[in-house]
């Protein structure tokens, strides 16, 4: 049985008691400004928070908290809901003691304080960060119940900081020999990742600002790298050092993890780009359509290679597709919100979204991905997601053949 929606409950003869009797907030003096001086969400939003997936990791410090995509809007991620992936916990760095070093194949190795970095020319740009392992639990089968767990290692923020290219120029990197950089964190894990020099000189930001304020501690306060379009682990948090080199570094998180086991038993190493991907966030797994009729179906699309060109949505498991609206400014390597209208007729339906990016790449079906990459990868699962609506309106995570 469908539960009645509130608007139907409210259809009393004379009218809705919540209209006929004024609510208390219409008849009282409200609260003061600047209380709190740093604002917080409404108490009615407590269900919308970051969560771990039980059983995914053995510890809480080398773990993931997922963003509640089912409760989010637009393309910007509220910083309080930004997903987390730490390998050795998050640390509360004193910004007055934090330093950035540039060394290696440079004319003049350099040290910067935070004050130094904030004196330098800065840029502000909106980019997504997606963990390479996002949707990794779904390589084999439908495994987790909601979009928070299937796709929630994903966020999008406005970052402000110094272009890495500028710092490399200032240190005088060796234009003949330099081919790679190593980025290193100041936390216990001293997280390290190799980045191609060409990319490092392109749109990489040494960022201190996020969504109008300083980075949050869990997101690398006071300094992180932002490597747009690339799996999140490259956007090293609590960044303390950049080394310029002529060979890749094969550090733990690019030589033991973040490698993709192919059907022939070889591992692909240095798979970095987050290819075009999209997901319907509402309705999605664990939700229930409360009645038949019109719904705004909404979701997110993005591409590590450029901009979103188009998002198509299917309601019959991929047989027929309709092109959705793209909202607001469609920006490179940023999330793009899409919306499309749909009328649910009470019959089972399978909802899917499929993005095409500015390179012409079309988001693959799961079977196409498996044909090439097999089923034992963990990373880079950008397959089309299916949500099945059953007769009772319940939405489930499924995979189609």
């Amino acid at each position: 049985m469908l539960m009645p929606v509130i608007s139907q409950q409210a259809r009393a003869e004379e009218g809705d008691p919540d209209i006929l009797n004024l609510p208390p907030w219409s008849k009282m003096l409200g609260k003061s400004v600047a209380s709190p001086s740093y604002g917080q969400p409404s108490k009615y939003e407590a269900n919308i928070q970051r969560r771990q997936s039980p059983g995914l990791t053995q510890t809480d410090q080398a773990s993931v908290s997922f963003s509640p995509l089912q409760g989010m809007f637009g393309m910007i991620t509220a910083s309080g809901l930004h997903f987390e992936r730490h390998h050795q916990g998050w640390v509360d760095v004193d910004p007055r003691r934090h330093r950035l070093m540039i060394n290696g194949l440079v004319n003049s190795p350099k040290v910067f304080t935070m004050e130094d970095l904030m004196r330098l020319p800065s840029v502000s740009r909106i980019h997504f960060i997606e963990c390479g392992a996002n949707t990794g639990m779904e390589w084999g089968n439908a495994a987790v119940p909601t979009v928070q767990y299937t796709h929630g290692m994903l966020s999008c923020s406005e970052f402000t900081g110094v272009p890495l290219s500028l710092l490399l120029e200032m240190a005088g990197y060796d234009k003949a020999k330099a081919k790679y950089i190593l980025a290193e964190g100041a936390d216990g894990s001293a997280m390290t990742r190799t980045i191609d020099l060409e990319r490092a000189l392109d749109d990489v930001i040494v960022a201190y600002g996020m969504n109008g304020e300083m980075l949050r501690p869990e997101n690398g306060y006071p300094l992180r790298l932002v490597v747009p379009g690339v799996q999140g682990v490259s956007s090293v948090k609590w960044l303390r050092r950049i080394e310029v080199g002529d060979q890749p570094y094969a550090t733990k998180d690019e030589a033991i993890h973040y490698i993709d086991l192919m059907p022939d038993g070889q591992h692909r190493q240095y798979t970095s780009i987050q290819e075009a991907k999209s997901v319907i966030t509402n309705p999605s797994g664990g939700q229930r359509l409360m009645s038949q009729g019109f719904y705004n179906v909404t979701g997110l699309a993005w591409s590590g290679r450029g901009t979103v060109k188009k998002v198509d949505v299917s309601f019959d498991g991929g047989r027929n597709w309709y092109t959705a609206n793209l909202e607001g400014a469609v920006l490179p390597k940023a999330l793009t919100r899409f919306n499309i209208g749909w009328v649910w007729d009470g019959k089972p339906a399978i909802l899917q979204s499929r993005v095409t990016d500015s390179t012409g790449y079309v988001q693959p079906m799961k079977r196409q991905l498996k044909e090439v990459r097999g089923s034992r990868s963990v990373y880079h699962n950008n397959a089309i997601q299916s949500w099945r609506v059953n007769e009772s309106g319940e939405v489930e995570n499924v995979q189609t053949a």
Partner: protein
Amino acid sequence: DTEAPLNSVSSPWQSSYESVGRSATPAEIASWDIDVRPDFTGLPAGSGSVEDGESLWMERCASCHGDFADSNKFFSPLVSGNITEADIAAGHVASLNDSTRVRTTLMKVATVSTLWDYINRAMPWNAPKTLSSDEVYSLVAYLLSLAYIVDYDFVLSNENIAEVQALLPNRNGMTQEHGLWKVDGLADVNNTDCMNNCEQAVKVESFIPDFARNAHGNLQQQMRVFDPFQGIDTTQSKGA
């Protein structure tokens, strides 16, 4: 590709920022430049025996990784016996193809520098950067011995580490032949944006198992309290 990070501007001061920051001193670089590359650039001279590694392991590592590095209480096993002599000869671990087997660190790792570098920078997990170089050598030696790559009487050093690299079971197990590194790399999977009558028969092949319905907690409490799409009470069985 996208937008130039800096626009052209008219300020005569625009590029006068060279004075910001300062040169790093040699001592500072020595303090922070700890990375060790596959070609052993960055590796400090030193050595450590399997034997010393074993006792250090029991003291500082075994509580999390198990006496034989085969525990998955804190992390997936580092070593667990899926490596054969044929693998060591081939430089490729065959059991990686066996989906029933757990994939351990020593089965996957293709560069011994990776182990040295990581243990040195990050382990023990709760007290990183407290090991001496010799201690790191001995711990790497112990792990190699657990995987039968070196014998129990082996002493690993900067001098013989390249020989050990030549024995690493999965040393030929990595490929960089793919389009996912460079921005303009070629995609390996293709789809088309077919719009009508695309799939002939739509069949669901995988559902969330029933036992997993409430495994992430009651989903009703993970959705907004008002919403056109309300959260399902997963403490109740399906369709209830």
